[in-house]
């Protein structure tokens, strides 16, 4: 008996989604432990010995049991819908990521494009949340969010397009295959510059310190999610971490050779996860060591530095590919 293809896809998507949720939960634990070590603390410890391995579960339970408060003056529809609109694109980005050859939901031939397009959709939910809350902090944060996402999506896309050009394909699995000889991060000059630009744009796209002006808890309290509580807050938080993890996977896939690594083929997913976590930890490391910069400075960095730089880099990559042909080595 063979399953109809639609059902097969649905089952894969279900598995990936659930694995993802667990992974996201434990990524939060990883970040908390990592941050704690940086700050000479221990971090979560008592909920689930050793080292608080039950902490994410406890957090999720706590948030589920919290009272869900809807501000009287909020725009109810927009306010209630926003967490979902925010979460769905954040989870959808995993659809095109292959975790190993033939292991993924859908290895589209325009995988990278799909990822980039969907991941910038989160801004809609974010703005809805900021607007619907009818709170000045949230409104200001939503305005900042739009500014920032527009400014940083372009460098993010340009940086991500460099490996696409080098591989000569937008299909994620093809990009990995093209890195068999040489990971793109090791590609002379272009690879490193593109990786750095990608990381910086990632920080901004994920709203992490030093670019977390939308959350900016010392100015805007919690930004667009200041009015959210309980499960809605949990959804936003989940979406944020899922987005972060998705971007880390993308970084590992575009620059660090995806599932390529020593050992038998079945180790592939583990290599991939390891690399994604490494990218995630680099981002976390930056997050916990920098101070936030101002909104005008963020925009200046993007428009005056990052955008022209990535554009030039993309052009240079085009020349190189025209001369040498696509592919690593």
């Amino acid at each position, binding site marked *: 008996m063979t399953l109809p293809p639609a059902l097969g896809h649905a089952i894969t998507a279900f598995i990936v989604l659930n694995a993802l949720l667990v992974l996201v939960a434990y990524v939060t634990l990883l970040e908390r432990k990592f941050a704690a070590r940086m*700050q000479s603390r221990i971090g979560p410890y008592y909920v689930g010995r050793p080292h608080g391995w039950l902490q994410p579960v406890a957090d999720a339970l706590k948030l589920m049991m919290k009272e869900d408060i809807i501000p009287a003056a909020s725009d109810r529809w927009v306010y209630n819908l926003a967490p979902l609109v925010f979460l769905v694109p954040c989870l959808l980005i995993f659809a095109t990521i292959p975790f190993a050859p033939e292991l993924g939901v859908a290895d589209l031939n325009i995988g990278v494009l799909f990822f980039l397009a969907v991941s910038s959709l989160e801004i809609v939910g974010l703005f809805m949340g900021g607007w619907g809350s009818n709170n000045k902090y949230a409104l200001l944060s939503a305005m900042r969010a739009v500014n920032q996402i527009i400014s940083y999506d372009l460098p993010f896309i340009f940086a991500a397009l460099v490996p696409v050009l080098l591989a000569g394909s937008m299909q994620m699995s093809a990009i990995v295959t093209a890195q068999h000889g040489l990971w793109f991060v090791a590609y002379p000059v272009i690879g490193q510059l593109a990786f750095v630009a990608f990381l910086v744009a990632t920080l901004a796209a994920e709203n992490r310190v*030093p670019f977390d002006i939308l959350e900016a*808890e010392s100015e805007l309290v919690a930004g667009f999610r200041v009015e959210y509580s309980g499960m809605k807050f949990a959804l936003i938080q989940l979406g944020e971490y899922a987005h972060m993890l998705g971007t880390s996977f993308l970084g590992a896939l575009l620059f660090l050779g995806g599932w390529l690594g020593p050992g038998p083929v079945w180790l592939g997913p583990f290599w991939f996860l390891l690399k994604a976590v490494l990218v995630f930890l680099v981002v976390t490391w930056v997050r916990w060591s920098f101070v936030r910069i101002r909104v005008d400075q963020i925009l200046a960095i993007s428009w005056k530095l990052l955008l022209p730089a990535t554009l030039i880099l993309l052009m240079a990559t085009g020349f190189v590919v025209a001369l040498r042909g696509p592919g690593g080595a």
Partner: protein
Amino acid sequence: MPDKQVVELGYGGNERLMMNMGPQHPSSHGVFRMILTLEGETVVGVDAVIGYLHRCHEKLGETLTYVQYPSIASKTDYVAAMTSELAYVSAVEKIAKFEVPRRAQYLRVIVAELQRIASHCLWLGTWCLDMGGALGGGATVFLYCIREREMVLDRFEELTGARLLYGFHQIGGTRYDLPPGWDKKVRETVDFIEARLDEYEAMLEENTFFRVRTRGVGVISRELAQAVGVSGPLIRGSGVGYDVRRAEPYSSYGDFNFEVPVETAGDCYARYRVRMVEFRQSIRIVRQALDGLPQGPISSRPGVKSVGQVRVPKGEGYARVEGARGEVGCYIVSDGGPKAYRMKWRGASFSNLAVLPHIVPGHKVADVVAIMGSVDPVFGEVDR
């Protein structure tokens, strides 16, 4: 379903937005309310509201006796409790012309300077917390600073049994002498902190983001600083080398070698630099005072037996000390009884805070918290 409430968002003409910062706000450093008028992200007006932490300190000073009040005085500036105690007892001693033994004077200097270190630790931590966020690099600096502040507080705990409000000073001297081995521990503490200071500087000054957030932000000109009457690191960051310890040495400060750091830029970075140098100068003073600590009594007055024991002749006196935040003054009028007839605090934070409406407008919202943090107010001292 109830009628939907309509909330006025406060858009005035010219697309202005009124936004409340505080009294309950993550970076209001206590309970301070700023009503900001925004045009987009730019602040065009600021209305500062104080008084949320008013506890009738000056009235308390008139109802409590000279024996009781020093431990209440520490509650004005609770981050640097030692200096407000010192200001109070100095004022009383001035009126009554009580002698203070040299050992007590040195002890006062040691605790005052340790207190400055502890207070600046908290300032650096919370300021970075304001700029870097509780979920970012700011929190890292904050926790490092708290770790160092804890060490100083441990020393104070060994000395007085208290960690925040000490009651160390009393009229005529100090209440406690050093426990055995304390000076060695203090030396270790300041050595440790001195080594950490280099780390902070490396972490912050070599960080471009920190520099762009602080340089040229919240500039207080020399004229403005003098006109408003700011003191402490604020006025020294604006190019005026004014320090009460140097201008009018009290409590044996004349015996020690130390520098008064002055920066001319007047921005947040200048104030940061001034405080970073003050850290080191305080450590220097602590070491000198420990080296030269004379033997002898710690108080010229008999031990406390009753609350009305200290009587001060008729008269009035004003004593000022250099607190961590600037000039802390205490003015007392005595009618000859066991209590002050009138008393008035000059809080350093209160005068420093008055500069905010002059320097905040024109900056972005994010700069408001950076400027607030660099002013380093403690609202116990502002509202009293």
